[in-house]
């Protein structure tokens, strides 16, 4: 046990996260925040308001991502697997969810001039987008990436090479975002997949996340002490559940609204009830 911890600490003590990867990783998120706020300002100028809660969600999402890539959590994540896993939860699950709920594409479409907005829509309708937003594709990118990271030598290699560190962190965020928007449709989604299909793929993806976290619990990635892997694995398991429950809830809520019986809608309209549309 002592030997393991010694190797572990000497391994991680050498390679601390330097300033360069922190700056490179933080920059896109800061730009995304500036971009979002600018869109709101332009929108306001055109006398179109934007809900405060969406702005709040975007800001919180950016803050979660930044917590994972710069500052104390990011720096210590190299030597501490539990903190690394906290970073993973923030960057790969919580930030993507909050940012997806902020409907950035909707905001962009309403802010851009009509011709530019048409081009964006064209991209959204394109064949590659159809593939990217397929829940199966998104799940393979997301879960497959995690399996490769934690069960191969990629994990120790990430701590050796700065470029690998940056690449993996971007992949974790982008795959997490893609996964979220492939399951719950907040922004316009020209190629929608049926609820049942999304539900089944979601269950399989969540299962794979749960299995991987238990696998890590029992088989620490190389360079990680057993106790650290156990805490990290449990954090991944329960933290994953906490985020998953929100995604499942929203997916079911959207189904509930879409499955609204037409006759009920008519009654509500005629009695002047407010109908909430997704």
């Amino acid at each position, binding site marked *: 046990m002592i030997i393991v911890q010694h190797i572990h600490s000497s391994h991680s003590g050498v390679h601390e996260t330097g300033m360069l990867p922190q700056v490179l990783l933080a920059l896109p998120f800061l730009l995304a925040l500036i971009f979002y706020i600018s869109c709101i300002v332009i929108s306001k100028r055109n006398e179109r308001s934007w809900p405060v809660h969406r702005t709040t969600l975007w800001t919180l999402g950016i803050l979660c991502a930044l917590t994972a890539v710069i500052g104390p959590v990011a720096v210590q994540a190299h030597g501490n697997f539990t903190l690394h896993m906290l970073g993973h939860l923030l960057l790969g699950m919580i930030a993507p969810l909050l940012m997806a709920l902020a409907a950035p594409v909707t905001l962009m479409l309403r802010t851009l001039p009509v011709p530019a907005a048409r081009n964006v829509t064209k991209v959204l309708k394109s064949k590659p987008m159809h593939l990217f937003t397929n829940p199966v594709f998104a799940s393979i990118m997301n879960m497959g990436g995690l399996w490769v990271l934690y069960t191969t030598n990629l994990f120790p290699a990430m701590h050796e090479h700065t470029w690998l560190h940056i690449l993996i962190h971007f992949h974790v965020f982008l795959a997490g975002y893609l996964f979220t928007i492939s399951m719950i449709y907040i922004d316009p989604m020209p190629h929608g997949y049926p609820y049942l299909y999304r*539900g089944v793929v*979601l*269950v*399989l*993806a*969540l*299962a*794979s*996340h*749960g*299995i991987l976290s*238990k*696998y890590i*619990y*029992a088989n620490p990635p190389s360079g990680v002490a057993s106790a650290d892997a156990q805490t990290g694995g449990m954090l991944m*398991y329960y933290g994953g*559940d906490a985020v*998953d*429950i929100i995604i*499942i*809830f929203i997916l*079911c*809520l959207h*189904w*509930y609204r879409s*499955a*609204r*019986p037409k006759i*009920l809608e008519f009654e509500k309209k005629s009695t002047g009830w407010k109908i909430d549309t997704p």
Partner: protein
Amino acid sequence: MVSVRSEQFQFSGRNLLSGILFGLGLIAFFDEVVFHQLLRWHHFYDRSTTDIGLISDGLFHAFSWFATIGGLFMFADLRRRQALWMKRWLGGVFLGAGTFQLYDGIVQHKIMRIHQIRYVDHVIVYDIVWNVGAAMMIGIGVYLVYKTRRHRKEEVAQ
């Protein structure tokens, strides 16, 4: 005889499915919170596990997490359609919960030997309580589902 509305007949299957999903989710959640986390009688990973056990556990956990929420949304959907058939729905809950507990007690505990209910001597006593409890839930479930089905037949005959 209690009269049953036509909406309830129309959504008879959804009443049953919603109940089964919620029952599965409920019992799995209960098992995890009470036995894994509060009593700590057994854990999510008892070292003697097999790969298949790990995978089946993971799949089941994800499914039950989804089933609890999905089942309750279906419940809400039935209510707004005025098609909720409480007796049939409860039948589904008992059937779902009982079936899972029996699967857990027989397949996971005894055949795969992933974990036992508790690591004590005479675990057979716990096994009997566990599996008889499961069988009783299935019995109540089958009875309620059968009763609500008979109503349906009578109604069709009229």
